[in-house]
């Protein structure tokens, strides 16, 4: 089991390394460099020279990549071109805010998706299943910026229950942020639930059709026991994997949602950085997104090892 965990860890490190290469060298492939991209038509004279010196662009790309990775591991992502602050500082305060958003959405979305997914899967093709599946389909195809705009209109403007947009700085205390996350969390949880429940439903249907469940039913094993002993663990395995995969997809949604709600998170920072052509900041943010994904995936892998006795024992024997 330990060996599996180490394997997965190694894989995660490899993934991050590869992403860092993609992120770094896709920018290097630019005609010009970070400074000319940032300064555009003012990329000349002392302004350009100062930028090049500050960003250390005289050294060869390979060497700079090495330095970038080494400092990134130590939590230093250099300085933002536009905001003239440490990228790590900018990221830190906003990471907290996005984590709050995503964490709350996951806390609501995952259990909800599992319940609805099992319910739909076990009542396949009956009204409850059709209703759940249709709503999930709509949730996945209606763009999140529409859902968000409608929710703002109904709950913030007409009913006045919650704030419409966040009007706090990134460093605001968490307590002050809480009322502001209600609507974005609902939108995010809605999306997340739809994705995970579809997979859950499919997985439940597949497992229910499998021989060992049929066998158990024939043997007269109590339904409750079938559910908890056989169905739930088997059906959850692909779901756990999906939860991690869905995460990467959802982080994109976070960008849009933070924009609509004016929420001071990483997604919002990323849009600003792209507007500003602040590539060092953009690179750091994409890498952060990849890190979040990799960690989520790692946790999913570990959960899977714990869930599936076959993987556990097979690995131990190997």
């Amino acid at each position, binding site marked *: 089991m330990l060996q599996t965990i180490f394997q997965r860890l190694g894989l995660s490190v490899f993934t991050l390394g590869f992403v860092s290469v993609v992120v770094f060298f896709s920018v290097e492939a630019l005609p010009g460099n970070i400074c000319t991209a940032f300064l555009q038509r003012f990329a000349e004279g002392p302004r350009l020279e100062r930028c090049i010196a500050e960003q250390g662009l005289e050294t060869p790309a390979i060497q700079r990549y090495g330095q970038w990775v080494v400092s990134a591991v130590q939590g230093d992502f250099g300085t933002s071109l536009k905001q003239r602050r440490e990228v790590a500082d900018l990221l830190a305060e906003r990471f907290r805010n996005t984590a709050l958003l995503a964490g709350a959405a996951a806390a609501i979305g995952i259990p909800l998706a599992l319940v609805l997914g099992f319910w739909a899967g076990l009542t396949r093709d009956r009204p409850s299943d059709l209703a759940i599946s249709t709503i999930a389909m709509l949730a996945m195809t209606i763009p999140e910026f529409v859902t968000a705009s409608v929710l703002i209109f109904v709950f913030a403007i007409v009913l006045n229950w919650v704030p419409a947009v966040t009007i706090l700085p990134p460093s605001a205390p968490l307590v002050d942020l809480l009322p502001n996350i209600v609507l974005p969390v609902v939108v995010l949880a809605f999306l997340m639930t739809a994705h995970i429940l579809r997979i859950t439903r499919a997985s439940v249907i597949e497992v229910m059709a499998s021989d060992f469940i049929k066998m158990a039913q024939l043997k007269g094993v109590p339904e409750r026991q079938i559910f908890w002993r056989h169905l739930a663990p088997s059906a959850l395995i692909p779901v756990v994997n999906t939860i991690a995969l869905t995460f990467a997809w959802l982080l*994109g949604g976070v960008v849009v949602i933070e924009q609509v709600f004016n929420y001071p998170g990483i997604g919002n920072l990323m849009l600003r950085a792209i507007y500003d052509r602040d590539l060092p900041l953009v690179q750091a943010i994409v890498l952060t997104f990849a890190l979040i994904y990799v960690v989520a995936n790692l946790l999913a892998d570990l959960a899977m090892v714990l869930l599936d006795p076959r993987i556990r024992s097979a690995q131990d024997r190997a």
Partner: protein
Amino acid sequence: MVARPRSSGTGGPRSHLLHRIMARPSGVIGLALTLFHVALALLAPLLSVHDVSLPNADTINLAPSWEHLMGTDSLGRDVFARVVHGGQLALMVTACAAAIAITWGGSVGMLLGVVGGRTDEIAMRFVDAMLSIPSLAFFLLMASVVGGGAWTIVPVLGFFYGVAVIRISRAATLQVAAQDFVMAAKARGERTGTIMRREVLPNVSSILLVEGAMQWSWMLLAFSSLSFLGYGATPPTPDWGLMIASERGLLAVAPWSVLWPCAALSTLIIGINLLADALGKALGVDRTREVPG
């Protein structure tokens, strides 16, 4: 867990396939919605008498009427005209990107499946790593490198979604590769390219087709997000994402100029999605495990 045998696509005559798609209500709905949208995009110039981009000070935020079936927006433009034209760009951009994704993702996947061994194992590690970059973040990074705009985004979308296709294509190829006729071809010493084209492609093409349609529907959603953020279509192009972005603040006053473009976008995505699903079932392709991405 019990693995379900994956039947390779058996093809069959066209009418037969259509019949099988239409056998399910979801297939009928999907086909109808998709055809409806394609027809709309093709016939758009004939359907609307109003100019799509010219502002008109006298017709601002009018509610739906016979003259303006879906009302008018905050610049006095006919929403119906803009909605029927609004799919053209998105459909073209995403269709091209989907074709790229299927072509390159499909061939790389087949190659890896046929070659197998170490190469395959290592390459798949890279594919998995690539998939850990959130798609929208990747598009935005690329947009900041190559500049935004609807057409510059095509290769980026195609490339990224193609990575996901590699996995599917490879998995399907592995099923085929283990079969006797491929083994025999290998034993005959045929070139990899020949094997891929003659033995593998006919057997995985239906999977790729279904996958392509599925990816296409998610690309439409991604493209609308990009337009919404200002990196897809640019004003005054009628585009659903862009229309929603500029009118969403007026939801209370002129909900029609937000909700109609949204309805158009969602029905198109649902249509393609259902069609792909029905197509998959009709061709015997099992894709319950897939995640949009």
